């Protein structure tokens, strides 16, 4: 039956935006009405929003893009070496987290990580030598994202590093990430002391090859299923990864103990290494997210946000419908809890590709599944739930597999629509660790940060421009 006849056969159910008077008079008549808390969109985006609304392609393109994002089946298939998997990597090319960056603009932790990687690769004798060479431009810097990869915090990826290979069980895509070193004085926080370098050597000599042998022995590991289970065990997929790491260890279990072609003491070391690192799986979860992100890219007219990433100086995003373009703004400060005697003064601006998790319905978008996270990032458990609930306003879909038990197993909000961000003023919520400003300090705290509106405003205007 037609919609207009249906309207005339019954009593209207009304939703309002604008003056409360109109909603009030409906209630006075004993009828039901739902109000919205409407506000005008971000200044300077009205014309772009109207253009997108008038262009019939945007909605359908978004449906296509988010479907592609949700269709990937990430599986860990191998652990290889960076130089062997990246065609564009040279002996003096390093990848890094976030949008494009030059040495002169890089923050403390990023510089520290580059210095550390140079020492690790034997490209410099020591920190001063490394710094001088880097300043002279002897190292080529390129975003991980440009190479199908992601990296947490500084995310520096150099030729000798072991790299996880995550393939799409339902398609052709592949994504990569380095392996997680653990907490403390580690490269990704900008540490370049011998301890950090030695660990990197151990990872390429033992960790990588052993994991590769395990995968050879037992076959690929379905990451999607682990993540889905972990969300119902109190993880959020970004800052709380204990459950998913534990599940991962169980997946490795049998082949690690017996079956993988590697010396038993190495297998034992690998077990202890992963067992001691609650965040080991973060990198793999990120790579799984990157797989979805890349699959959703390149749909013309789509305003789906495929990437959110920070390089320690800038916060950058990409949209599905605007190709490779980055939309950047200064990385915002983090509203957080500081460890020990650290304060905001000690904090480095937001850094890392780990916001790929928020792009695919995890992290800040799944806080309601992990209320314990507030012990880490601050706030209240009820506040954690509210933050997730607020994200449904700006997303295109509810995740079919990542479900939140306390919301009656509602799927997490997934598929950020830049147009809705700009329209409603609701910004993507991110949970994040904070690195120390001074390279090598390590983590100084953790907290909540909102992606900057400026990125989304630029992106929406660019998309509207492209459609005209």
């Amino acid at each position, binding site marked *: 039956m037609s*919609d*207009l*006849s*249906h*309207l*005339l056969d019954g*009593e*209207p*159910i*009304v*939703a*309002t*935006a*604008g003056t409360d*008077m*109109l909603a009030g*008079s*409906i209630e*006075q*008549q004993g009828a039901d009405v*739902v*109000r*919205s*808390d*409407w*506000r*005008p969109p971000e200044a300077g985006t*009205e014309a772009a*929003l*109207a253009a997108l609304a*008038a262009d019939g392609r945007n*909605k359908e393109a978004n449906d296509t893009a988010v479907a592609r994002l949700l269709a990937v*089946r990430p599986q860990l298939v191998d652990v290889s070496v960076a130089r062997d998997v990246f065609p564009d990597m040279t002996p003096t090319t390093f990848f890094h987290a976030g949008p494009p960056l030059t040495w002169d603009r890089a923050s403390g932790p990023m510089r520290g990580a580059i210095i550390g990687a140079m020492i690790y690769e034997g490209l410099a004798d020591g920190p001063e030598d490394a710094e001088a060479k880097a300043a002279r431009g002897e190292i080529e810097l390129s975003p991980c994202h440009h190479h199908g990869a992601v990296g947490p915090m500084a995310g520096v990826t150099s030729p000798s590093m072991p790299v996880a290979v995550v393939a799409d*069980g339902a398609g052709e895509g592949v994504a990569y990430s380095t392996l997680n070193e653990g907490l403390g004085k580690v490269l990704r926080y900008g540490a370049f002391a011998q301890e950090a370098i030695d660990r990197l050597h151990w990872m390429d000599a033992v960790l990588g090859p052993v994991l590769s042998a395990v995968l050879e022995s037992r076959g690929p590991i379905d990451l*999607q*299923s682990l993540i*889905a*289970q972990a969300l*119902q065990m109190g993880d959020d997929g970004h800052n709380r990864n204990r459950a998913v790491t534990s599940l991962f260890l169980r997946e490795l279990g049998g082949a690690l103990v017996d079956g993988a072609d590697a010396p038993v003491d190495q297998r034992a070391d690998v077990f202890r290494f992963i067992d001691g690192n609650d965040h080991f799986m973060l990198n793999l979860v990120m790579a799984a997210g990157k797989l979805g992100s890349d699959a959703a890219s390149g749909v013309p007219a789509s305003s789906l946000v495929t990437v959110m990433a920070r390089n320690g100086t800038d916060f950058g995003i990409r949209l599905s419908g605007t190709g490779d373009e980055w939309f950047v703004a200064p990385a915002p400060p983090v509203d957080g809890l500081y460890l020990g005697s650290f304060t905001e003064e000690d904090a480095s601006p937001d850094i890392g590709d780990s916001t790929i998790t928020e792009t695919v319905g995890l992290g800040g978008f799944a806080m309601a599944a992990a209320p314990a996270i507030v012990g880490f990032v601050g706030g209240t458990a*009820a506040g954690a*739930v509210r933050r997730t*609930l*607020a994200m*449904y*306003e700006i997303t295109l879909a*509810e995740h*079919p*597999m990542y*479900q939140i038990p*306390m*919301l*009656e*197993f*509602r*799927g997490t909000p997934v598929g950020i629509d830049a147009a*809705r961000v700009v*329209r*409603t*003023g*609701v910004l993507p919520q991110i949970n994040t660790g904070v690195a120390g400003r001074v390279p090598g300090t390590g983590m100084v705290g953790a907290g909540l940060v909102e992606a900057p509106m400026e990125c989304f405003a630029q992106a929406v205007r660019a998309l509207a421009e492209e459609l005209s």
Partner: protein
Amino acid sequence: MIARVEIHPGRYHDSVRLMQASKALQNVEGIIDALVAMATELNLSLLADMGFDMDAVADAGPNDLVLALRAEDEGAIATAHQVLDDALTHKAAPSGGLDAPDPKTAGSAAAVADANVVLLSVPGEHAFVEATEALESGRHVMIFSDNVPIEQEIILKAYGGDHDLLVMGPDCGTTIINGIGLGFANAVEPGSVSMVGASGTGIQQMCALLDDAGVGVRHALGTGSRDLSEDVGAASTLQALEALEEDPGTDLIVVISKPPADPVAEKVRRAAELCSKPVVVTFMGETTLEEGAGEVLAVLGRPPAEYGTWPAANDVHRPGFVRGLFSGGTLSSEAQFVAAPILGEIGSHERDEGNTFVDYGDDEYTQGRAHPMIDQTVRLERLAAAARDESVGVILMDVVLGYGANADPAAELAPLVEQAVTAGAAVVVSLCGTRGDPQGRDAQAAALNKAGASVFLSNAAAAREAARLATTRTSS
């Protein structure tokens, strides 16, 4: 009897959920046996025990979902799939009693209640984006906002027309659907007369007249003030007309507007003629709403009505011009149409001399203020000024009641009416309201009458009276 075993790889659900889903499947009519579970070794052995063919699950692992059904027929299997989907997916449901943040757009508010009408009063430049979202999610739209570019109106109405969704507006002040008023609307008795109108106050006046004549109203669909322009071409009017023709509860349709451009007027008249139900077309400016109402009564076989009147206690007033202080353009225009042949020239802008009927709902007077139907401040000042102005002999005002309007306009007006009458001016009030209005129509009329005004439920009648008073004055 059919047995079916299916694998859904990579779909994870916790065991409690799956047990509930299995139970739901077992309750489906025509399903003899059902199991939905993760393909763990334990569950697979259960499957074997139930006698299902294990070939299909040879490659299944613990991360795969297996669905096994034994059914009487294909229909039961189809139902079972639907039941399973419902049990495992969760649509945009409320967040289980938790304190969810308020929806930020009309579209997300509409999703909360599965609304079928979105009512927008956001600033005009933002209405298009909201309206598009509403239409794209299958909801009708009423745009109360004005200052919406006409190109956008055309796009919205084209989409609406293609999808059987009605776009009411922009600049639509009044709509009634099955007795529920949206915007500024009067309380109506249920009936079988429906309306389509490009003027909200025009709809209100027609409702008031019919109500006084004992005729109920079913629907009054506002189309927005520009619908009958050449560019928009009566898109919503024609769509509404067609829908009302098919509405079994509508016996007669009234079309209300100011006179449209010829080609559009022609379109509308033709549609009215072809309609299988009687259609009364009232183009104000060619005729009055009072005459239109009269035509409705005639078609319904009712006697002509005498609309409520509260005559002033005395007829004595000073000579002078007529000053019309209106809260909207429609009643002002109609009053001019009626009074001009009697009074001669009537100006539409404030001036020192001559008859003037001014619309205080115009942008000029409403900067930073609510509409005069709500906020009477400006008109109260003008009333006081007119009382003091010796060149003014008659003051004519409309008072519009109903939902959305001022809760007690007579209370604010009465003292100033009394002042004006004491000063020697005659005051005529066109009271637009129905018996059921929240302000209490008759109480409002009585209060204004007691203060010295003559009160008319028909705007045309009020205008005639004002003109009569000005031209056949009796001086003291």
